[in-house]
């Protein structure tokens, strides 16, 4: 179950107001005022009583007239969640409230709680200056959010496979499942890190533990299990508990991706940060010091950075064509170099990093620097 949370507002629902809303009539407007929008959800439609409303306090009075459980979202144009309500059963009413500034928004109903939902564009009017959005950037952010969600969604079964192998005491199977379970995370790490609390639980290395934390008791996540598998060479009940905890923590991550603060700038900076991750953790072989699967993480980081760039490219290329050209070139160069370390260009079976010599590591590092330097200018090119 996903945690119920309203990002922009208190959810202090007033039952009295709820009872006043009787459906798609206009009755409620007398009580709820201009800020109330009736939302009538069915299995195939998402009707709203008005498409314009004053900025400020807004209330979505939702009635589910369909046969499926639904969700209703109030979204920014880039798909960031303003407010949401999940688990609205057939024939029930719920309400969603938020404080909104003037600007464009969307209301989405998700019958069956799946997919992008059925959407309605709405506008909050007011004297306050609406945030100007380049629709291309909104699209980029929305697409990136979708990508981040896909990565999280796809990670869960992979990590469950990994966890099952741990719990079965099957070291070989667990080793095999380890690196693949991390790819989605590595691709979108800046999003996960923006939550602050998840990364230290799932991706911390022993040297990253805080003062006073005991590696044997307080260290959780992938790298603790990595150590059990490759260094300790044995699995205990503690590892099983850690595996369960890892799945749980990553499910939490998955449920929160939709609420991450994502902006064009944060996408661009996130891309740069992914290269920083490569430069400080992977190129040095510190990230996967026991499994030596650093190149898998490396590739994941680069893919995630490239995704951000590709989505921002229409705007970046217009504002700074030379930068876009350089980024195209350097992404291609780095990917070509990485391909030398795997047989199957579509697979993630990379050479073990302990087999990668000093000169080769320098070559990789040079390629990372060559890409990271222009990538550090992407954010400015996007907001120019």
């Amino acid at each position: 179950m996903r945690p119920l949370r309203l990002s922009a507002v208190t959810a202090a629902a007033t039952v009295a107001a709820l009872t006043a809303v009787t459906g798609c009539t206009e009755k409620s407007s007398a009580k709820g005022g201009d800020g109330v929008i009736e939302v009538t959800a069915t299995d195939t439609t998402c009707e709203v009583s008005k498409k314009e409303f004053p900025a400020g306090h807004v209330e979505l009075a939702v009635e589910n007239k369909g046969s499926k459980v639904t969700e209703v979202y109030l979204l920014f144009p880039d798909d960031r969640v303003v407010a949401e309500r999940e688990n609205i059963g057939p024939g029930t009413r719920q309400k969603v409230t938020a404080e909104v500034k003037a600007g464009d928004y969307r209301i989405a109903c998700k019958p069956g709680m799946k997919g992008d939902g059925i959407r309605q564009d709405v506008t909050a009017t007011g004297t306050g200056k609406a945030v100007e959005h380049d629709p291309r950037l909104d699209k980029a952010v929305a697409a990136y959010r979708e990508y981040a969600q896909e990565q999280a969604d796809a990670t869960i079964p992979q990590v469950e496979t990994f966890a099952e192998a741990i719990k079965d005491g099957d070291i070989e199977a667990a080793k095999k499942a380890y690196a693949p379970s991390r790819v989605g995370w590595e691709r979108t790490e800046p999003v996960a890190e923006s939550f602050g609390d998840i990364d230290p639980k799932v991706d911390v290395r022993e040297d990253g533990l805080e003062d006073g934390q005991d590696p044997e008791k307080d260290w959780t996540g992938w790298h603790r299990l990595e150590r059990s598998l490759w260094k300790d060479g044995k699995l205990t009940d503690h590892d099983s508990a850690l595996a369960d905890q890892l799945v749980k923590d990553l499910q939490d991550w998955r449920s929160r991706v939709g609420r991450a603060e994502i902006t064009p700038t944060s996408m661009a900076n996130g891309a740069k940060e992914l290269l920083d991750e490569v430069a400080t953790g992977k190129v040095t072989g510190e990230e996967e010091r026991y499994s030596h699967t650093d190149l898998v993480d490396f590739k994941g980081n680069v893919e995630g950075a490239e995704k951000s760039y590709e989505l921002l490219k229409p705007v970046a290329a217009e504002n700074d064509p030379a930068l876009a050209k350089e980024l195209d070139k350097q992404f291609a160069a780095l990917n070509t170099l990485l391909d030398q370390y795997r047989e199957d260009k579509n697979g993630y079976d990379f050479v073990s990093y302990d087999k990668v010599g000093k000169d080769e590591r320098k070559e990789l590092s040079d390629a990372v620097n060559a890409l990271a330097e222009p990538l550090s200018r992407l954010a400015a090119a996007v907001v120019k």
Partner: protein
Amino acid sequence: MTDSTEIEITESTTMTEGTSRAPSRRSLIGWGGAGLALGAAAAGGAVAVATTGGDASPAGADAGAPVAFHGAHQAGIATAVQDRLHFAAFDVKTEDRAEFVRMLKDWTAAARRMTAGKAVGEGAYGGPAEAPPDDTGEALGLKPSRLTLTIGFGPSLFEKFGLADARPEALVDLPQFAGDNLDRARSGGDLCVQACADDPQVAVHAIRNLARIGFGKVSVRWSQLGFGKTSSTTPEDRTPRNLMGFKDGTRNIAGTDTAGLDKHVWVAGSDGPAWMAGGSYLVARRIRMHIEPWDRASLREQEDVFGRDKAEGAPVGRAKEHDEPFLKAMLPDAHVRLAHPDSNNGAKILRRGYSFTDGTDGLGRLDAGLFFLAYQRDVRTGFIPIQRSLAKDALNEYIQHVGSAIFAVPPGVRDADDWWGRTLFSSTFSSTKGA
């Protein structure tokens, strides 16, 4: 041992043994230097020196002043030796000649600004908040500090960009010398930049920003910090001491010795190739000093090894540092004797080395020594014969050459439209993209 080389190679060839009564070169040069300094001051105002020649800043010049970047020769060779060094060798990463040339132009523009005490590009602040600043910022508020930036091209560069025919004959691959224990990771390089300044932070800032501009085009191969000069080109100044505690570079070529520079340092037009006219050849050697054993050597042994006394720096049997050495009074394997031009067919090189300590060697000792830098008109008649003759140097017991590189140092950047390497790249053509 180069270090040794460094120490005394520049003994005058013109003076014969036993002529200690003759006026010393030092006093002559001192007068000359003073005259030139006055001229420069009169002509150039506050700027230390902006001549077309050796750019020797007058001794005692303001350590914060700028040194002219433009000139017939690159600054940083005959220029009065600054206190600090950051030297970096780079490997070329791009295969695109036009892109490399563009980088050289970008480097030149940055060097022009930094040597004038200005920040790179649009500066270290005030730009768009979303973008990293052009300049890294650590030199903000610091004086120009006589920063000089000197570029050189290594032999391996000429294997790229269709430059093979332009490689000077004098840019030889250095032979293996007796006692060499070279670390490949601290040797060679397609190109180099020598940054000298009186403030170490100014020198490091310069290399760092050039490396940053170079990402994707070049990559730092190795770099070396030097904290104390071990030679000067201003003989009127007190001679600096190396880490062995001896005065070093007593007879170095003075920055004001135009004739000596022309004869021993600058490549003449007739030497060829044409693009090197006004340039020089640089040999860089990282010389580890076994300072702990050295410090246990008796004073007599130390002085015998060098052939000079420790306090004054006077040659054996002489009273004063600048007295002409009487080589035959020294032991046959004394460093000064072997490095002296008289022992090397008159070979002289301009030394510009710096002391270094790079942490420890992991064995409880300092990783210390001399980063030897020598400029010359032709290494085949300069460093190579001298270094060969040092094969039997007594000093070899206490030093070891662990890094080595050689570079062709092109002539100076003439004006605001000129750029590093123009003479080379505009005299050659590429089958791919022209420059």
